C-alpha cells in the first residue's frame, strides 16, 4: 500500500462517507491534511507521517464508533444502539466478549421478561372467561374450585403481566443509558490494533 497523504485521506474518506455528515467529515479530513502539511514543512516525509499516524482504517473505525454512539445517545432507537454496538465491536477482537456477549444477554433478558408479561396479560382474560363460564354453570375445564376466586385471580395475573411489560420498558431504557456510557468508555480505552506501538 502506498503510504502517502493522498492515500491516508482517501481511505479515511471512503470509510466514513455515508456515516458522517459531509461537514463533519470535511472537518476531520482537514485536521489530517493540516497534520501532513505542517509535518512536511517540518521536514518529514509523507511516508514517515503516515506511519506515525497509524492505520487510517483504525482511525476511521474509531471515529465511526464515536459518531454512532453519539447518534444513539441523541436519537434513541433500537437501530441506532445496534449500529453503535456493531461499530464498537469492530474496534478490537476482545470486544466480542466485552460488547457482543453482554449485548446479546441483555436483549435476551429483555425479550424474555417481555414475553412473560405478554403471556400473563393474555392468560388473565382467558382465565376470566373460564371463570365466568363456570359461574354460568357451563362445564368448562374446572381449573379452580371457586369461580369467584378465579375472577380475582385472572384480574391479578393480567395486572402482573402488564406491570412486567411496563417494567421491561423502563429496564430497557435503563440499560440503554448504561450501555451508551459503557460504549463511550470502551471507545476511549480500546484501540483498533492491539499489537502496534
Amino acid at each position, binding site marked *: 500500500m502506498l503510504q502517502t497523504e493522498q492515500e491516508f485521506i482517501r481511505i479515511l474518506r471512503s470509510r466514513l462517507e455515508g456515516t458522517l455528515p459531509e461537514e463533519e467529515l470535511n*472537518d476531520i479530513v482537514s485536521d489530517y491534511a493540516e497534520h501532513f*502539511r505542517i509535518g512536511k514543512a517540518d521536514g518529514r516525509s509523507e511516508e514517515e507521517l503516515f506511519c506515525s499516524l*497509524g492505520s487510517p482504517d*483504525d*482511525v476511521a473505525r474509531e*471515529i465511526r464508533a*464515536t459518531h454512532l454512539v453519539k447518534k444513539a445517545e441523541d436519537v434513541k432507537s433500537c437501530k441506532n444502539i445496534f449500529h453503535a454496538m456493531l461499530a464498537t465491536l469492530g474496534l478490537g477482537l476482545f470486544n466480542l466478549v466485552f460488547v457482543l456477549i453482554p449485548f446479546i444477554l441483555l436483549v435476551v433478558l429483555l425479550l424474555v421478561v417481555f414475553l412473560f408479561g405478554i403471556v400473563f396479560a393474555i392468560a388473565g382474560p382467558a382465565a376470566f372467561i373460564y371463570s365466568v363460564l363456570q359461574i354460568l354453570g357451563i362445564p368448562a375445564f374446572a381449573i379452580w374450585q371457586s369461580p369467584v376466586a378465579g375472577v380475582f385471580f385472572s384480574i391479578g395475573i393480567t395486572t402482573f403481566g402488564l406491570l412486567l411489560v411496563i417494567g421491561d420498558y423502563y429496564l430497557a431504557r435503563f440499560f440503554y443509558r448504561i450501555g451508551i456510557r459503557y460504549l463511550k468508555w470502551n471507545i*476511549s480505552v480500546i*484501540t483498533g490494533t492491539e499489537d502496534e506501538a
Partner: protein
Amino acid sequence: MNIQFKKGVLEICVLSVLARKDCYGYELVGEISKRIDISEGTIYPLLHRLKDVGYVTTYLQESAGGPSRKYYRLTEAGRKEEHEQKEEWMRFAASVNALLEGKNDAAD
C-alpha cells in the same frame, strides 16, 4: 507498554498539555508522542470527542508564512475536568507506586 494503558491516560495528557498552552494539532501530537509511543492518528478523534463534550474549543490563527492553523483551547469546563482528572491520577499513581515499591506505611 500495554496499549490500553496508554490510551486510557491519553485524555488526561491532552487536557494537561492544553492547560499549559493552546496548541495546533500537529504541535499537540508532537508534545504527546515525544513522551508516549502511541499511534498519533488517535489523538485527533480524541480531540473531536473533547470538543463534542465541550472541554475544548477551536479557533483559526494565521501562522508565519503559511495557511492558518487550527488551534485547540481548553474551555472553563475543560480546565475543571483537567484539574479533577489530574488530582485523581496523582493520587492513583502515588498509591500504585507505593504498592510497587512495597511500602507498608501507605495504609495508615
